[in-house]
């Protein structure tokens, strides 16, 4: 190994065996060592036993995506070897437990038929059979580090006077992380600190893990050639976190004080994080608090959040596709009654239950059109974990300023990716409650007509500010009307707010243009941003990128303007039918030239995108490119 300041590290193992924890410790150790992190988690809709893995990409520069290529593979079971070996790069290291050598494909029952056939074909083609065979086939190109984890464990047990070896098996994961750090010649103190930070107050667990880490670290250093791979500098202004945490932090900063949810992957983490941080310290020394309610279903989640918003709280709910489907009716009611409620929608692979723990951006057109009838709503999308925080705050501002439901659309890739990101600058954010008023003089009309469609709003319980809401068409007081003239007036009042919003917002809030002075522009929304930027930089910035953040109301004129200066437009998104390309066509008249899509449940990697874009540069005629990488 050389100092190349880049690494794509993968660890795999059965779900529930600690893969997640060890990847988090590895990431945190590298982060503490001053490196940038992009981590991606893959797991089945299963609690224990199915294959899960975690990719951690490490670099001394900003990175925004994962790579399919593996530079260091940590295999604590045979399945990891069988599944991932084909992605291992030349010169990679493979850390594995030497006791796995004789395991064969047929010994593993968690590999489904299709993957099994695929691996079988591969094995046959190479005349391979066991784990050892497989590793032999790459021994020339890779450095294979077999570590006797069981033996080390026994030693550890003996040293600690622990008779039940099974109590210790969990720490194998930590040992594999320690071995990884050793191979990279990163100081062992980083893993110590990472362990402390992850296990917080559990002192016994910390001590045990540190012992185990040391043992593996030393063993590895002693046995294998070690060479420095990274030179790092201090990263004071970076934090390491996941997308769901960014959203939760955004909600706290935004002043969201009421959150409802019904458990669903991958949204639940956000609500649980909020519940664990429900007492809020204010800068003026007072305390705030956030009420988090687990409801009986998602219908209740959206309607309860709406009720709280009517009472005057900044209020939201978080969900994923199936839950969002159940919210359509409530969304329509909130639109009709001009209630500022925020829905954080974490997309996952559909349709229906789909691949509930996997990736997709399949709900864009649904989010824009969900709910019967026509009413104003905003749909905004974030492209990375940093944006999530700021956009969450914007979502609440938009909701209150324009008095409409706002859907903040994210996806599983953003929710679960573990990344280093610039520490949030709370001085940058503004809270804008729009026309929310504290006291009322004179005759109060909740839906008073106005030029921009926006009326003053009061909290329930405001003196002289009694008001009515109804899902029926209503007059300015909120009482039912069926008058055709009033109906037109009220439809126009509500819909006008979309124009008001488009007029108000800055270009930066609508879309971000990464201008590389190219005549080719990639358009996208949401999580593919990272892979695109990384791939573009691998391609010497031969593309611009336009990341659309405001999807509804669609900022036609700004987008048209940007795209008018470009020769070739390439759409990149993670769904079957290229939904953004439809919006572009509809609202800018531009037919995109290429669609690069992916819908196998795995996020887009920088390297597969690099190849796809290279092909386009080289004149490929294929107008629709389907990416299919991933395990």
């Amino acid at each position, binding site marked *: 190994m050389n100092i190349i300041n880049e690494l794509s590290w993968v660890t795999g193992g059965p779900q529930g065996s600690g893969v997640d924890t060890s990847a988090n410790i590895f990431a945190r150790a590298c982060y503490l060592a001053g490196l940038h992190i992009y981590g991606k988690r893959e797991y089945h809709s299963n609690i224990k036993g199915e294959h899960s893995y975690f990719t951690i990409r490490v670099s001394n520069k900003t990175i925004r995506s994962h790579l399919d290529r593996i530079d260091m593979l940590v295999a604590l079971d045979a399945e990891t070897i069988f599944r991932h070996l084909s992605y291992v790069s030349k010169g990679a290291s493979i850390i594995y437990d030497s006791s796995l050598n004789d395991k064969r494909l047929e010994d593993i029952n968690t590999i489904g038929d299709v993957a099994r056939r695929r691996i079988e074909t591969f094995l046959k083609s190479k005349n391979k059979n066991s784990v050892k065979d497989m590793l032999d086939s790459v021994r020339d190109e890779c450095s294979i580090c077999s570590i006797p984890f069981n033996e080390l464990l026994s030693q550890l047990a003996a040293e600690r006077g622990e008779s039940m070896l099974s109590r210790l098996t969990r720490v194998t994961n930590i040992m594999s992380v320690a071995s990884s750090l050793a191979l990279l010649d990163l100081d062992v103190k980083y893993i110590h600190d990472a362990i402390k930070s992850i296990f917080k107050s559990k002192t016994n667990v910390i001590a045990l893990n540190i012992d185990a880490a040391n043992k593996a670290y030393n063993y590895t250093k002693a046995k294998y050639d070690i060479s420095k791979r990274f030179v790092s500098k201090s990263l004071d202004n970076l934090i390491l976190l996941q997308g769901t945490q960014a959203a939760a932090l955004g909600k706290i900063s935004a002043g969201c004080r009421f959150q409802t949810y019904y458990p669903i992957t991958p949204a639940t983490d956000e609500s649980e994080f909020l519940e664990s941080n429900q007492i809020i310290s204010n800068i*003026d020394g007072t305390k705030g*608090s956030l009420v988090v309610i687990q409801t009986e279903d998602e219908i209740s989640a959206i*309607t309860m959040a709406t009720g709280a918003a009517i009472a005057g709280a900044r209020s939201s709910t978080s969900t994923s596709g199936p839950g969002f489907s159940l919210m359509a009716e409530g969304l329509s009611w909130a639109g009709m009654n001009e209630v500022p409620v925020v829905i954080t929608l974490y997309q996952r692979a559909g349709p229906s239950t789909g691949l509930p723990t996997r990736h997709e951006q399949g709900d864009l057109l649904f989010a824009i059109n969900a709910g019967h009838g026509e009413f104003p709503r905003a749909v905004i999308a974030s492209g990375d974990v940093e944006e999530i925080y700021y956009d969450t705050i914007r979502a609440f501002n938009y909701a209150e300023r324009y008095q409409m439901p706002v859907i903040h659309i994210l996806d599983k890739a953003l929710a679960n990716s573990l990344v280093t990101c610039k520490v949030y600058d709370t001085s940058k954010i*503004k809270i804008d409650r729009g026309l929310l008023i504290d006291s009322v003089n004179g005759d109060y009309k909740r839906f008073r007509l106005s030029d921009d469609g926006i009326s003053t709003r009061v909290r*329930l*319980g405001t*003196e002289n*500010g009694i008001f*009515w809401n109804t*899902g029926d068409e209503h007059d300015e007081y909120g009482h039912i009307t069926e008058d055709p003239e009033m109906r037109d007036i009220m439809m126009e009042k509500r819909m006008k707010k979309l124009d008001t919003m488009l007029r108000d917002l800055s270009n930066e809030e609508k879309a971000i243009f990464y201008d590389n002075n190219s005549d080719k522009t990639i358009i996208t929304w949401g999580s593919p941003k990272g892979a695109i930027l990384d791939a573009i930089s691998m391609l010497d910035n031969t593309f611009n990128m336009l990341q659309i953040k405001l999807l509804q109301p669609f900022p036609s004129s700004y987008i048209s303007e940007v795209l008018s200066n470009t020769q070739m437009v390439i759409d990149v998104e993670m769904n079957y039918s290229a939904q953004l390309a439809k919006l572009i066509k509809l609202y800018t008249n531009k037919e995109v030239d290429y669609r690069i899509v992916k819908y196998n449940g795995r996020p887009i990697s920088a390297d597969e995108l690099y190849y796809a874009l290279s092909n386009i540069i080289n004149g490929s005629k294929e107008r629709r490119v389907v990416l299919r990488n991933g395990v």
Partner: protein
Amino acid sequence: MVSKRFTIADYKTSVHNDWCPGCGDFGILNSIQMVLTEMQLPNHKVAIFSGIGCSGKTPHYINVNGIHTLHGRVLPYAIGAKLANPNLEVIAVGGDGDGLGIGAGHFVNIGRRNIDLTYIIFDNGVYGLTKGQASPTLKLGIKTKSLPNPNINQNINPIALALVAGFTFIARAYSYDIKHLKDVIRKAIEHKGLAFIDVLQPCPTYNDIYTREWFAGEGNMDPTTMKERSRVYKLEDENYDPIVHEGSKEEINLKMAQAIAKSNEWDNRIPIGVFYKNEHGYIYEERIESRISDYKENPPALQKIESNGISIASIKSILQLL
């Protein structure tokens, strides 16, 4: 300063009421307005939530905050508002189809929460606003006016369902006995915890079986006097004691059993009044207070979140622990 006394007129709106003449809904509307007057509740502090149906129009006729929500969803909307600001007086109203058909899931699950609000079901045995289909309280085999065939489903017993779900105040009233109804509503509002009232509400337009006359005793001969006798009687007139006094498990079991037995009476003798009342145990708002000590004084809806547009929440300590 002499504070103004509210009169019943203060609780009325000028909105044209378009219920059918003779509809039982009027009695409920009037009773609510009378209770508000009796209790002198400031209009702006009260919020009435409703579902969809004839009953769903109620809030438009009452001069307090009125939130006319979706079919079947009145409870979660009401809960949201109440929990965002527990200082509001929250009343939820709706039809039997609304609350026990499409809304049954929320009915059962609000029972797990014992939130301090009052829920009134306008129980007319039909889907009024959609023209008289069978509602979940209509009994098996009954054929009301608009049904092509006798009702194919058994009925839900709202009292028993509320009990099993966990409501802590459960009553029934009759919409043409306004004085009694009014008293029951007041008790429900004053109850600390989740209160439910099943109001027998004749629908003269679609329910030609359980009519005002039927309740008044049509065809119901008193075997002693040989005169028609009202089918409706008051629990309190028979020394029925609905109250859980000590709160022991045994007492609760007993009181629940008695309430369920009473709730199964129908046909010739239909009890109204309070079936069950239990103020032992924490209400939901108190459970939240055990996590957030200043929850009532500084509830979500009233919290200060910014100062001159700057967020006052600090996330520093959370970032440090990430």
